[in-house]
């Protein structure tokens, strides 16, 4: 027999890194199916282009960094898919591709690659795309209008409920229609019921800690309740704020993403609450409907600090208790 020696432990938890990544990819599949139902094959082609460009950019960056041809690293795929799902269905293909390539090359690989990215790659890519092409990223087509795969889009373009809220008006969509995703908005962020199912799946698979999106949504709802933007009442304000824009999508896929978030529980809760406060701040006072992504990037910068200070505080209180 050939005995080998590594270090303990000699048993392992069965999940692997690719299993975690695949959990997120599987969670996005129902959203892509619903976007196909509402907008035709264009969203699927866009997702494919984004995923392919993310992977190719990742391979090229690995070659540039001297790591050789790394074909097995599929971690960038999720970034491409998420950016495409946050886009309108009618946006030209180059817009999400530009965002994806920026995310993978500048935010991910320049700052260290897979294990070292301090900022959420998807949020950074989406911010870049929306600030570079703001007139394209915030105009949407009506659902159930099939869009051509290539060529000019001649469908009617409208603003989303998030823009109406920004102007202080009340969106005239039935909340039930909003739950089913039958209103103009980002491709993957409008189907609220499907998103909640995806959240349940990710929580049961333990890819996402339940208290992170819960804290984020609860804080955002509290702010919407206490400081309503619309005149229809506080409950209506909460409902429309929660159902519009990429709030729920971001809560599930971006804020809960563990890679650039703090690692300890209390720090994650503070981080989620901080994200919600900043998101609502950007929504209320920002220039565009863009709220969640820049808020997330700001809180990412504080991840290590939150972990460190909360850990120090806990050790200090423990030592005081022991001495007492």
């Amino acid at each position: 027999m050939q005995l080998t020696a590594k270090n303990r432990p000699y048993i392992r938890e069965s999940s692997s890194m690719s299993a975690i990544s695949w959990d997120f990819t599987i969670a996005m599949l129902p959203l892509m199916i619903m976007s196909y139902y509402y907008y035709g094959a264009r969203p699927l082609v866009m997702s494919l282009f984004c995923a392919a460009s993310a992977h190719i950019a990742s391979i090229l960056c690995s070659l540039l960094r001297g790591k050789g041809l790394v074909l097995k690293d599929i971690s960038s795929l999720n970034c491409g898919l998420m950016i495409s799902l946050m886009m309108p269905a009618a946006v030209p293909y180059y817009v999400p591709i530009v965002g994806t390539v920026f995310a993978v090359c500048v935010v991910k690989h320049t700052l260290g690659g897979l294990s070292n990215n301090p900022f959420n790659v998807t949020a950074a890519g989406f911010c870049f795309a929306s600030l570079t092409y703001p007139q394209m990223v915030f105009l949407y087509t009506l659902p159930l209008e099939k869009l051509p795969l290539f060529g000019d889009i001649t469908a009617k373009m409208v603003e989303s409920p998030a823009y109406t809220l920004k102007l202080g008006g009340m969106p005239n969509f039935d909340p039930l229609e909003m739950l089913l995703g039958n209103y103009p908005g980002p491709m993957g962020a409008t189907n609220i019921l499907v998103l909640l199912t995806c959240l349940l799946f990710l929580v049961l698979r333990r890819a996402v800690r339940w208290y992170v999106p819960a804290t984020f949504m609860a804080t955002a709802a509290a702010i919407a309740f206490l400081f309503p933007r619309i005149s229809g009442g506080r409950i209506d304000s909460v409902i429309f704020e929660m159902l519009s824009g990429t709030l729920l999508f971001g809560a599930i896929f971006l804020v809960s993403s563990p890679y650039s978030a703090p690692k300890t529980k209390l720090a994650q809760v503070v981080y989620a609450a901080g994200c919600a406060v900043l998101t609502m701040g950007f929504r209320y006072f920002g220039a565009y409907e863009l709220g969640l992504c820049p808020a997330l990037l700001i809180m990412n910068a504080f991840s290590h600090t939150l972990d460190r200070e909360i850990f120090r505080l806990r050790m200090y209180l423990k030592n005081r208790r022991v001495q007492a």
Partner: protein
Amino acid sequence: MPKRVYGGVELDQYKEPTFSREIRRLDKPEKVYLPIDKEQFSMRYRQRVHQNQPVCPGVYAPLEVRFTGLQTFAHLDTSRQFAVFETAYEDIEDAPLAPIGRPKREYDAISGEDVIEIAKKMAIIDEYDGQYLYQKLQRAKEAGVTVLYANAIDDEPYVSAGMGVLYKMPHEVGIGLEFACRAVGAKESYALVYANVGDLDTPLKGSLSGMKVKKLYGNYPVYKRQAVQYRSGQNEMIGVCALVHLYRACRDDIPQTTCFITVGGSCVANPCNMEVPIGTPVYDIMEKAGLIKNPQVITLGGPMTGVAITDLDVPVEATTRAVITYEENMGASLEHDDCIGCGRCVQVCPRRLMPYYIRKYVKAGKTEECMHLHAERCIECACCSFICPMGIDLVAYVQRYSQELKAIEEAQKSRAQEAPQPQNAGENTQTEEENSCS
């Protein structure tokens, strides 16, 4: 209010069939390797030693043996020497390992001081922490311990040596515990067992041979974490195997020459708990238990805290509680070092440390900045490495941190010692005056 317990990991225990089977005995290994102190050891080549006679102070021959040489092993500290003995069983009857016949002493005539003396003379070692039993009893007596616990906690998968001995030899453990209580002056005694095992064929009884059994539940680790309260303050824990040896020593003057181990894993044909002479090489144990597959890894100890061996001549010692085989090598390695930042290691740490950040700081060479992370609190349970989806050896980073910290402290000490001593004020002024004159 009970102390809240954080983190840890839930492990599948796989304690069958080793727990429910009877304890087997390995009587006749071809060779034994006994740990010796080189300065106190002197024997001629082929010198014969009878069973239960001392080889050197504190070490007894488990069988009729002849000395054939000295050896060291690569996986251990190479300053530790082992004396190699061939068994010479061909010309005598097999001496039994278990006591038979009438006891040599009456139980009631043995006082507390006698128990401590016997434990010292017979070199009984507690298998859980490697301490001499007599020292533990003396310390417990001085500290005024009032509750003694028979420790049968087996919280690692496959390992069932402790609970196997407790449930298959309750009489010996019970009387041994009584002797230990007499030595320490304790009024109460219990047995402790880890009961969070889902697949047992035999139920865990709550009362054994007059001993009450306290069951512990919860995630791994239990011995290093929750059970700390049972060995601090007015409480002390003693391993069940040490109690069995204490019973035998008090009854029949037999020194500790054997240990109880679990032989198991996916490659063993007959997994079971076994009583083997101390110093038996792993080769003989594998032969006795039988192999149905070629293992990739064999560990001394459980899968979470054990040490992998590559040499089948490595002997078991008094603190070895398991020899486990694995078909696949899923060990952690410093070669796989791609952390993805998932943070699971931080979620499972039972000491609420942050292995993710400790690794980052140690890799960056910033050990001093890492001190606020309190890595010295680590109990090396290996939960972080277990849960890591990338297979990173996080325990090694914490160990490296401890080594670097020690090196820094020693450098500081030596700098402080080498620093020139400050001169007195009078001498200084005189020197300055002399300098100014010239």
